[in-house]
């Protein structure tokens, strides 16, 4: 997993609520057998029309908005458990997603793929959207060690992250590394429980 520590970037706004994983990556694009290449189909049906032409007006097709930070409406990532949603975001180039609420499985999947989900309040989210609207080039910075999201003109938001997950992100560790070192405990547990 790629490490994350500090990041500064402009942001892409997507002020829609309840964005589900079928929008992030529609099921018909889940046929890959590697983790690469999903970025092409990120938000596919919002980005392209039936004849694969870019849909004007969708934010990813608007060159004004660019960056490694996606700012999305409440309840981002609901729906399926497909990790392809996190891979698609990562493959497209996002490292941070900001929203006022995340679906559970998506949040876990993001963290397992080096993408940081930052939960802010509804009011803070509104403020961030307004900032981007006023000036699409606004640069936001993420300081993971200190758990702060800020810009140069007054926004400074302390965010929560589970201590364990923070360590993993900072060091690029996966849960699997930890678990693989626990085989003895696991076998002992099986014997005790008679599995």
């Amino acid at each position, binding site marked *: 997993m790629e490490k994350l520590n500090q990041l500064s970037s402009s942001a892409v706004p997507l002020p829609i609520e*309840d964005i589900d994983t079928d929008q992030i990556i529609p*099921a018909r694009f889940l046929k890959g*057998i590697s983790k690469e290449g999903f970025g092409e189909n990120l938000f596919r049906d919002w980005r392209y029309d039936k004849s694969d032409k870019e849909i004007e007006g969708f934010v990813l097709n608007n060159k004004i908005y660019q960056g490694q930070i996606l700012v999305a409406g409440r309840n981002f990532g*609901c729906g399926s*458990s497909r990790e392809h949603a996190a891979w698609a975001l990562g493959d497209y180039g996002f490292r941070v997603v900001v929203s006022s609420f995340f679906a*559970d499985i998506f949040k876990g*999947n993001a963290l*397992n793929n080096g993408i940081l989900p930052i939960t802010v309040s509804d009011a803070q989210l509104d403020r961030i959207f307004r900032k981007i609207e006023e000036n699409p080039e606004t640069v936001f910075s993420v300081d993971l060690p200190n758990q702060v999201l800020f810009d140069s003109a007054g926004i400074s938001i302390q965010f929560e992250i589970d201590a364990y997950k923070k360590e993993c992100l900072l060091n690029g560790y996966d849960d*699997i590394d930890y678990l*693989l070192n626990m085989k003895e405990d696991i076998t002992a547990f099986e014997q005790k429980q008679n599995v």
Partner: protein
Amino acid sequence: MAKTLFDKIWDAHVVKEIAGGREVIYIDNHFIHEVTSPQAFAGMKARGIGVFRKSQTHATADHNVPTKDQHLPIQEALSRKQVDTLIENCKEFGVELYGLGHEKQGIVHVIGPELGITQPGKTMVCGDSHTSTHGAFGAIAFGIGTSQVEQVLSTQCLILKKPKRLRITVDGELQTGVSSKDIILYLISKLGVGGCTGYFVEYAGTAITSLSMEARMTICNMSIEMGARGGLIAPDETTYEYLRGREFVPAGPAFDEKVAQWKSLATDADAVFDKELEFSAHNISPMVTYGTNPGMGIGIAEGIPDQESDSFKKSLAYMDLRSGEKLEGKVIQHVFIGSCTNSRIEDLRQVADFVEGKIKSPDVQVMIVPGSKKVEQQAKEEGLDKIFEAAGFELRQPGCSACLGMNEDKIPSGEYCISTSNRNFEGRQGPGARTILASPLMAAAAAIEGKIVDVRKFLN
């Protein structure tokens, strides 16, 4: 200390507590399928590790398989590649596969219970969010991402934070024509798609305990649609009777011993939940959804509500529906009866019972897709296939089918489909497809009329 059912199962599976309030949880059974497993196997190959507990791992091909001519090679190259990759991985890693054409093949959440792999007190996972289905047996079952599939394949464990506990009690008797699908659509419409995020739900109350196992599975299946990690129901006589004699369930005295253990799996009378909600079954009527998430549901007699938000407006525009409009009388072009929510033998029987002697409207296409090979076979043994044929319903072969539109079973853009599946997201059943979620009975009635009707009118 008094414990909830959830706590009892969870606590019995803690291998170790680690930093940050996380725990290493042992997983009893793991289901895998073609879509969310290839990258996990690839990861294991890269690390040079094998499957830790093969006998606790079960594989099937369901998400992207064709539901016609399953004896022929899969036409679509990418789908074929994915299914072939599963076959190769299962062979290489020594995992038993119920592949296409196998007598045990089917949608993971249909075959687990049907084979008796799903049992009370277990922890079960699958790279699919509707793994919550298995909770109907009093198991902790939930969907995981592919990184976690890799973790469970290689260690039979996951690092998790214990969710909060929520009990939803539904008391009272259901009206005729109202089914468990309506209960869950009703709950989601009241609680919202994010309403239970962070919680694991226990369903209780007389309206729940009076349900069959199939009907309970429909409820637990859709727990995820309100954001819950999963949902479970305490096992009882209905559960034991369902499991008796199934392939993976011990027989004879060993079965009685199991039942004796399972009897301890109930929430203690004085156990405390983080949150409790109560509903009355009398208030529930046949439900339909009008929008693009499962929380956008109304009783069949109600009009579509009005909301200011852009997301709401976008959703109605996608569905080409208006606030105030009623869905009763809405002309539809497709009916899909299937998916892990409603494709079990009981669902098929119920539909057959209703349509026997009736003929579908000439203007609709009706697809009925059994959840498993066993369901398909049983439907044929019982002569349900003849009833469907006479009614003009096309009985297909098992798979996820039009639930997620990964194979060729898609709803054309702009057309309406009344569907017994679990998600009405934009494009879920195909780009531009408009999905109306409902119960099998409501779907069957719409098939006959060519438009959405209140099934109770047929039944009274």
